[in-house]
């Protein structure tokens, strides 16, 4: 019995002072915020890369390995991950990260979610999200809510690191406040500008920076452009003198470029997530990059 106790003691002493909290996220944006809040107390892995369409992610078995060792799973929720995450969670053999468990965090909770349907939705409307638009992290105010939720969750899972998480959250929020002022000042001259976007990914960004989304290149969410709808968009852009067509990196730019050629509008690649391009290394760089690109594209436009 004494030997057994000694072996146990040795095993306990051999463990590192604190093992890292393994965080798996569906999006790189959440991984970036978790890294900022968690510092060296966490390691992170994002299932969908920033340049990947987050609606279409393959449920690869290699992700099962990541999830089986995860202490925390952070998801966008609102059924953004419905096409791949449920079978991965089921096969992870990790009940800590099942919905409702302590290691599962739905980042949408508490965020400003737009376009919650108020009438019955059907798939005649395209690939609609019945719980609201899931691209909410493109509003920095929601980024603040997400960061607070992540800090609270990390403190719950790793209470010895609570002070670190609180400190890192405070500096994240201070920097976000400073950056929000900078971004708002840069975008202020373009308040009320009408834009066309490829997919309906930008309502939160547009609301925060006071842009008006006049239409989408997709006739309905998830449905590729059709000739008749493209003609409608061309007429809309001409009539409303819309300067920009915003396109996410994972969509084909052929139709937006054809529209631009006929209307004089500019096609602007816009990145919805961290990692969309190598320069976008964290959540702050996401807005830095997109806003600078927007401002540059608007130069010389009325």
């Amino acid at each position, binding site marked *: 019995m004494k030997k057994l106790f000694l072996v146990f003691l040795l095993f306990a002493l051999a463990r590192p002072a604190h093992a890292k909290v393994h965080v798996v996220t569906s999006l790189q944006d959440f991984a970036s915020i978790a890294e900022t809040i968690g510092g060296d107390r966490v390691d992170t892995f994002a299932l969908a*890369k920033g*340049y*990947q*369409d987050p609606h*279409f992610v*393959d*449920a*690869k*078995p*290699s992700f*099962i*390995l990541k999830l*089986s060792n995860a202490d925390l799973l952070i998801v966008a929720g609102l059924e953004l991950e*419905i*096409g*791949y*995450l*449920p*079978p991965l*969670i*089921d*096969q992870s*053999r990790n*009940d800590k990260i*099942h919905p409702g468990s302590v290691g599962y965090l739905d980042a949408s*909770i*508490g*965020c*400003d*979610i737009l376009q*919650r349907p*108020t009438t019955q939705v059907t*798939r005649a409307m*395209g*690939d609609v999200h019945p719980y609201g638009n899931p691209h909410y992290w493109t509003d920095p105010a929601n980024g603040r*809510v997400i960061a*607070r*939720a992540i*800090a*609270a969750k990390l*403190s*719950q899972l790793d*209470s010895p690191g609570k002070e670190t998480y*609180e400190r890192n*959250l405070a500096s994240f929020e201070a920097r976000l406040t400073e950056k929000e002022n900078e971004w708002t000042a840069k975008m202020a001259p373009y308040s009320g500008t009408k834009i066309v976007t490829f997919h309906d990914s930008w309502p939160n960004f547009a609301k925060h920076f006071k842009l008006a989304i006049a239409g989408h290149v997709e006739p309905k969410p*998830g*449905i*590729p452009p059709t000739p008749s709808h493209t003609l409608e968009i061309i007429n809309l852009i001409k009539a409303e003198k819309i300067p920009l067509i915003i396109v996410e*990196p*994972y*969509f*084909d*730019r052929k139709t937006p470029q054809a529209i631009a050629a006929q209307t004089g509008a500019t096609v602007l690649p816009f990145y919805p997530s961290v990692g969309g391009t190598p320069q976008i290394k964290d959540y702050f760089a996401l807005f830095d990059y997109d806003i600078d690109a927007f401002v540059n594209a608007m130069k010389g436009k009325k």
Partner: protein
Amino acid sequence: MKVRSSLVLGAVWLLAAAVTIAQEQPSPTPQTAPPPVPTPFPEPAPPLAPAPPTSPSQTSNYFNPSVSVIGNFLGVAGHNPIENLKAASLRESEVALQAIVDPYARADFFLAFSEEGVEVEEGFATFTSLPWKLLAKGGRMRVSFGKINTLHLHVLPWPDSPLPIVNLLGGEEGWKGTGLSVARLIPLPGDTFSELTLQAFDGNSEGLFEAPNRGDLSYNAHYRIFKDLSESVNLDFGGSLGYGPNDTSTKQDVQWTDLEGADLTLRWKPLQTGTYRSAILRAEFIRSHRREPVESQTAYGWFVSGEYQLAKRWWVGARVEASDRAVNAVLRDTGQAVTLTFWPSEFSQLRTELRRRRYAEGVAATEALFQLQFAIGAHGAHPF
């Protein structure tokens, strides 16, 4: 021996389930939960548009399973005296009912409605909270023999099953079993996924196994390795061993069929999907050794298939196949097929297959198969 092994498997499974549930019970030891600590972080703001209060009748719907129906219409042109498919048929309507059972399990039912009747294609509980990296299923399920046999009709890359499935696994529907399945995750170095699945089923499976005695069960073992070769390329390899009593058995003299299989899937799919190009190469090999009172039959079958995505909604594919027949291995069928697939949306699919099969009887058949699939409701995502 067979009875004992199935009992052992069942006992292990039950023990694992019991251990898990026991782990969830409040511990009688002084190891108390930490006291609740008030969070120092501001409470998240309530949603801007809170849902209206729900009446009791509405809340009761929260626990209803997700329901979906996938229709599968098939039209066939051409002449085929061996596989005489109807000119037009609603071949299968798959009704899926899927929900979480409790903190330990989920349940999935797939009911196949055809013009001939209704069949429980699958109906199983999956125990997702077991220790030792185990995942257990109990019920009726598609057997994890190879890759294609595990897939439902609506996710096959063709409107028909390849010849080795038809000839060696009991017919177009493949091998389905009622019993238990236990899978263990065995991580390998270099972030390589591997999983060992052991399954034991009742000894009856239409067209494949027929048990003269209750204790004559069928078994399957499957080992799968998955490796990301790069961000866009991955390789999936599996080996399978199956075993069950065949229809030449008598109560006193049980005759067994051994099945061996190997499957390989190579996928290429760039994550930057703006180009909408991807490709999948599949290959599967099956050997069936059927012991019979007079003369045993050893039959081989294989197929190689490729699919290439031309545009966001368009795919082309090709398949070559050959298979001996399990009951008479001298007879060999061969075939070639090309497919063109269009997805109007994620929820519907149009597919045409031009197929030429040369049967052992000396008959060659050239046919065109037209498939329309359409889904309504919330159908759960399928494993990769």
